[in-house]
């Protein structure tokens, strides 16, 4: 239990101030938003389209990039190779970049003059102002969350288990899918949730790549710019509720996944 001495009191007061700093603006926003305004916003087709777009694009970006990110995380956790630290630094780069700068970089890459833009153009696809472009911008800024979490998960799996599986005749891919992946699964799902949530809330990079179609953060910004704080608030509250709901749902799924890993059929 927490003993009531002066040091603990100071810790409690400082911690409370930090928590208050996070909660107070959110609580204020909720308190200033009436039920009627919120219901009107829920029924707003533009808001619905925008929220749906945000959710599915972020999910698709996370899912597609996970296919490459998870094996990369395993490599980082298990293998030593030249310039490994540089590779790790490159992965963390999007976290420290200003997101608008990241957006500019992505735009250069996917515009018709860019490498990917040209390739997409030959297929008759335009990435700018397109959900595909939005997905790339979201993935760019949020990939480190998945890679780093999955890497930590793989690193926590004792290497001896993988070695034991090899001596039992399993090939490298079977070891990966039956030992490494199931045992690191929780960290991978946590990283997945973090990447999804981070991608969903991205504004800076996305607004440069695609103002339209509008994802939720851009819609909130647009309403604030055009109509002011009062009109931006209900959409913000609603987006926070949706984001929290999805976040909690995915966390629950990840916890249930862990239990599934320990089921008798996990190996077969």
């Amino acid at each position, binding site marked *: 239990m927490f003993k009531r001495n002066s040091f603990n009191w100071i810790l409690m007061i400082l911690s409370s101030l930090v928590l208050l700093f996070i909660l107070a603006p959110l609580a204020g926003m909720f308190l200033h938003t009436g039920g009627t305004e919120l219901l009107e916003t829920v029924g707003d087709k533009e808001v619905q389209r925008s929220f749906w777009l945000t959710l599915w694009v972020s999910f698709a970006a996370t899912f597609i990039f996970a296919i490459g990110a998870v094996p990369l995380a395993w490599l980082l956790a298990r293998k030593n190779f030249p310039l490994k630290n540089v590779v790790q630094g490159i992965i963390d780069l999007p976290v420290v970049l200003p997101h608008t700068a990241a957006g500019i970089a992505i735009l250069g890459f996917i515009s018709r003059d860019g490498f990917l833009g040209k390739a997409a153009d030959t297929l008759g696809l335009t990435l700018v102002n397109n959900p595909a472009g939005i997905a790339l911008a979201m993935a760019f800024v949020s990939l480190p969350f998945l890679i780093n979490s999955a890497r930590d998960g793989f690193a926590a799996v004792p290497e001896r288990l993988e070695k034991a599986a*090899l*001596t039992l*005749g399993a090939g490298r891919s079977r070891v990966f899918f039956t*030992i490494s992946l199931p045992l690191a699964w929780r960290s991978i799902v946590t990283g997945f949730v973090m990447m999804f949530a981070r991608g969903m809330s991205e504004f800076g990079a996305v607004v440069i790549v695609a103002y339209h179609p509008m994802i939720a953060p851009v819609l909130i910004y647009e309403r604030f710019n055009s109509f002011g704080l009062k009109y931006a608030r209900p959409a913000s509250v609603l987006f926070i509720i949706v984001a929290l709901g999805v976040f909690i749902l995915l966390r629950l799924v990840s916890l249930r996944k862990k239990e599934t890993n320990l089921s008798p059929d996990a*190996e077969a």
Partner: protein
Amino acid sequence: MLKLKKINKKLGHFTLTNVNAEIHEGEYYVLLGRSGSGKSQLLELIAGLKTPDSGEIWINNKNVTRQKIQDRRIGLVFQDYAIFPNMTVFGNIAYSLHSGKLGKKEINQRVSQVAEEMNIAHLLDRFTQTLSGGELQRVALARTLVTSPRLLLLDEPMASVDASLKDDIKRTLRQLNRKGLTIVHVTHDYREAISLASRVGVLHNGQIVQEGPPKEVFRKPINKFVARYAGIRNFFRVKFHREGNACKAHCKGNLIFNIIDGSFSEEGLLLLKSDEITIHDSAPEQGHDNCFRGIVREINPSEYGMEVTVDAGEPFYIDLPVNDLKMLKIKESSVVWITFPKEAGIVLPGTG
């Protein structure tokens, strides 16, 4: 059966250097070495988890140095068993069988059979987190044995098992060996070698420094390191010389030992096993090859009962059963006499 030919491998801060060994079919070979001496790495090299920098590994007259792990048919049981926590005991044992083309019925049959042999049939549906060290050990063995390995490698198999279960594990290992399975067992505990090995090798500074039947290795250790492995704590730096027909060893503490005859160099080490020294609470009758008067400095519990440290110009460490100590009625600062036959002295010539 297994031949290691001039194996060299740099492993972090130390190197396995020119490791040569030959293990015969059906042999129980114990490799002794300190923690961090490269024993486990040597097993991983044999299993194929690591590749030597140079040298060759031969099994049944075939060079397997570059052969894939999956094709070597070598079983390795890790020190902490490396049981897969995401699977049941059944899942662990059946793991290797899923790689082949066996049907479900045959897999069940083979798992049940090996589980019966290891006395873990009642645990098959259990997850491994709740199993004891002894049970985990048996699961690890069963999981390896179900692959029908031609060679079984054991990495410190007793290290994580309660003392009370060690005899059970030893019995199981002896049975497996008696059935013809060749076993290479690495440990830091010489008692495991004595009770299990048909041959023992001592790994020191990345090299196998002595090899042979355990009794021979521990009776005639070639250096101080091996002697320590034999549980010997009494070491005396001595100079050898002859007095007529007798052979003497002079210690710097002015002790003169009578030792067995031999052709020794000028100086070397004299080793005495603790259990070969007798302690007396009064002056013994004459006729002992070696008899010294000393003072008891310490009495401490030991794995054999009690260890008495006697200062007779040089410290002597003597193991005694607790009852023997009670009968002697000695305590710290008591004056005692110690005796031992000249055959008890093990001579290590040279300065090593």
